[in-house]
C-alpha cells in the first residue's frame, strides 16, 4: 500500500466549498453590521449636534418660535408606563389561563390562532380601531389614555404568546411534585411558574416597550399631536399629547421656518437613547422581581 495515500487521507486541508461559504457568510455579516451601524452613526452624526439643553428642557411654542421636546419625552415615558399597566395584567392573566386552566381543545386553538393573526395586523389599522373604539365610542377623546389603550392592544399578542410559551416551558415535573403535596394551582403559579417564566416575560416586555416607544401611526389617531407642556403629571392622561415619534413626524412634514433643519434627527437620536434607557431599566426591574 502506498504510504502517501494514508497520509493524504488524514492530512489537514481546507475544503474549497467551506472557504467559499465562510467568505460569503462573513460578507453577509459585514453588510448587516455596516447597515446597522451606518444608520446609528448617520442619525447620531446629524442629530447629536442639534441637541442642546434648551431643546430638551422646553416645550415647542409658536409664539416664542421655540422648538423643544420635553413634553414629548414625558408623553413617551408616560404612555409607555400607562400602556404596560394595562397590557401586563391582561396579557399575563390570559397567558396563565391559556396554559394552566384552559382545557386543550378547539376553542383554545381558535384563540391562539386569533392571537397569531392579531400580531400580523399593520399598526395603522389598530390606530383606526383605537380612534373609533377608545377616542369616539368610549369618549376618551384624543388623549394619552386612548393612545396607551391602543398600544396595549397592539402589544397584547406579544405578551400573551411569549408568557404562555415561557409557562409551557417550565419543567412539568415541578407541577407534578407541587400538586402531589396538596397545594393548589394558584400557589404553584405564584411560587414556581411565574418566577421560572420571568426571563421570558421580561423579554416580552422589552420587545413591547420597543414597540410602544417606536409606534407613531397608531398614535396619530389616538393620543393626538399636542405639543404643550402638561400642567400636571397625575392628570395628564386625559390630555392629547404627541410622543417623540409623533413629534418627529410633525417636525418633518410641517416645518415652520424656525424649526431647525436637523430637528427630526435630534429627536431620532433622543428616541434611540430613550429606548436604550427603557430597556435597561426593564431589565433591572425584572432582575429584582426574579430574585424575590
Amino acid at each position, binding site marked *: 500500500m502506498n504510504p502517501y495515500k494514508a497520509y493524504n487521507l488524514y492530512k489537514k486541508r481546507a475544503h474549497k466549498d467551506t472557504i467559499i461559504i465562510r467568505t460569503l457568510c462573513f460578507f453577509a455579516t459585514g453588510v448587516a453590521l455596516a447597515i446597522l451601524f451606518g444608520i446609528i452613526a448617520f442619525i447620531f452624526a446629524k442629530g447629536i449636534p442639534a441637541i442642546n439643553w434648551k431643546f430638551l428642557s422646553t416645550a415647542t411654542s409658536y409664539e416664542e418660535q421655540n422648538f423643544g421636546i420635553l413634553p414629548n419625552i414625558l408623553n413617551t415615558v408616560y404612555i409607555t408606563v400607562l400602556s404596560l399597566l394595562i397590557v401586563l395584567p391582561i396579557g399575563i392573566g390570559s397567558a396563565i389561563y391559556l396554559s394552566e386552566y384552559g382545557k386543550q381543545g378547539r376553542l383554545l386553538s381558535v384563540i391562539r390562532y386569533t392571537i397569531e393573526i392579531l400580531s400580523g395586523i399593520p399598526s395603522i389599522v389598530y390606530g383606526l380601531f383605537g380612534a373609533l373604539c377608545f377616542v369616539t365610542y368610549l369618549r376618551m377623546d384624543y388623549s394619552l389614555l386612548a393612545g396607551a389603550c391602543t398600544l396595549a392592544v397592539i402589544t397584547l399578542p406579544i405578551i400573551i404568546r411569549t408568557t404562555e410559551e415561557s409557562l409551557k416551558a417550565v419543567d412539568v415535573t415541578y407541577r407534578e*411534585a407541587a400538586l402531589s*403535596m396538596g397545594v393548589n394551582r394558584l400557589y404553584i403559579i405564584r411560587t414556581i411558574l411565574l418566577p421560572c417564566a420571568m426571563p421570558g416575560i421580561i423579554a416580552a416586555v422589552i420587545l413591547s416597550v420597543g414597540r410602544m416607544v417606536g409606534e407613531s401611526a397608531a398614535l396619530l389617531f389616538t393620543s393626538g399631536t399636542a405639543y404643550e407642556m402638561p400642567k400636571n403629571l397625575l392628570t395628564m392622561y386625559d390630555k392629547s399629547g404627541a410622543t417623540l415619534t409623533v413629534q418627529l413626524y410633525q417636525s418633518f412634514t410641517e416645518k415652520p421656518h424656525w424649526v431647525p433643519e436637523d430637528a427630526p434627527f435630534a429627536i431620532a437620536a433622543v428616541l434611540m437613547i430613550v429606548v436604550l434607557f427603557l430597556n435597561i431599566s426593564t431589565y433591572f426591574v425584572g432582575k429584582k422581581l426574579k430574585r424575590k
Partner: protein
Amino acid sequence: MMAIIQTKKLNLHYGDNHALIDIDMRINKHEITALIGPSGCGKSTFLRTLNRMNDIIRDVKIGGEVVFDGVNIYDTDIDPMSIRKKIGMVFQKPNPFPMSVYDNVAYAPRYHKVKRRILLDEIVERSLRQAALWDEVKDRLKKSALSLSGGQQQRLCIARAIALEPEILLMDEATSALDPISTFKIEDLMRELKKTYTVVMVTHNMQQAARISDKTAFFLLGDLVEFNDTEQIFRSPAHKKTLEYVSGHFG
C-alpha cells in the same frame, strides 16, 4: 396487621386503554410494599390512584374504591388536595424546585399556613434529618437545591414530601436515576422511614424489592397477578408468570 389503605375492585381506563383491572389490595401500616412488573403493566398508574394524581390527566375513568382512613378517597365530596397532603409522593427523576434547600422543604408547610419562623425551622430540620440529609446540607440551607448531587436531590425530594408528615409515602422508581451508592443510601433511608410512615414503592429492580420490601405485588398487563409476603414471592410464587418474571425470564 391493619390495612392503612385498601383498594376494592379498582379499575382505571385511559380512554379505551384498560390500564388497571379489578385490583384488590390491602397495604399494611409501617410496611414497605413493592410493586413490580414489566414496563407498561400499570405500576405507576396504580401508585398514582392512591393519592389521586391521575385526576390531572385528561380522559381518565376510575371505578371501584380506594379506602383510606375509613373513607373512599374517590367519593365525590372528597377534596383530592386534602388526600395528597396525607399521601406524599417521590418521583423517578429528582425534581427539587429551583429555589433554596430550605424553601424546598418549607414549600408545602408554607402553603398550609405555617408562618412562624421557628416552627418552619423546626419542620425543615426534622424533615431533613429524617431524610438523612441534614448533616450534608445544614450549612447550605440557603443555597440553590439544584447545586446538590443527584442522590442528595432525591433525598431532598423525600424531605420535601415528608415535611407535612404524611401517613403514606409513594415512591415511583425513586432510585432508578441514581448511582448504586446513592441507591443504597435511599434504601437504608426507606427502612428507617417505614417506622414512621408507610411506604409503597415501584421498582424495576428485583433485588431492590427483595432487599427492602415486606410485601410484593406483581402486576402484568393491568392485572394484579400475585400479592404476598416478599419472601414468598421470590422463593415460591404461586403463579407461573410470577416465577418467570422474578427469575428474569421476561420484563
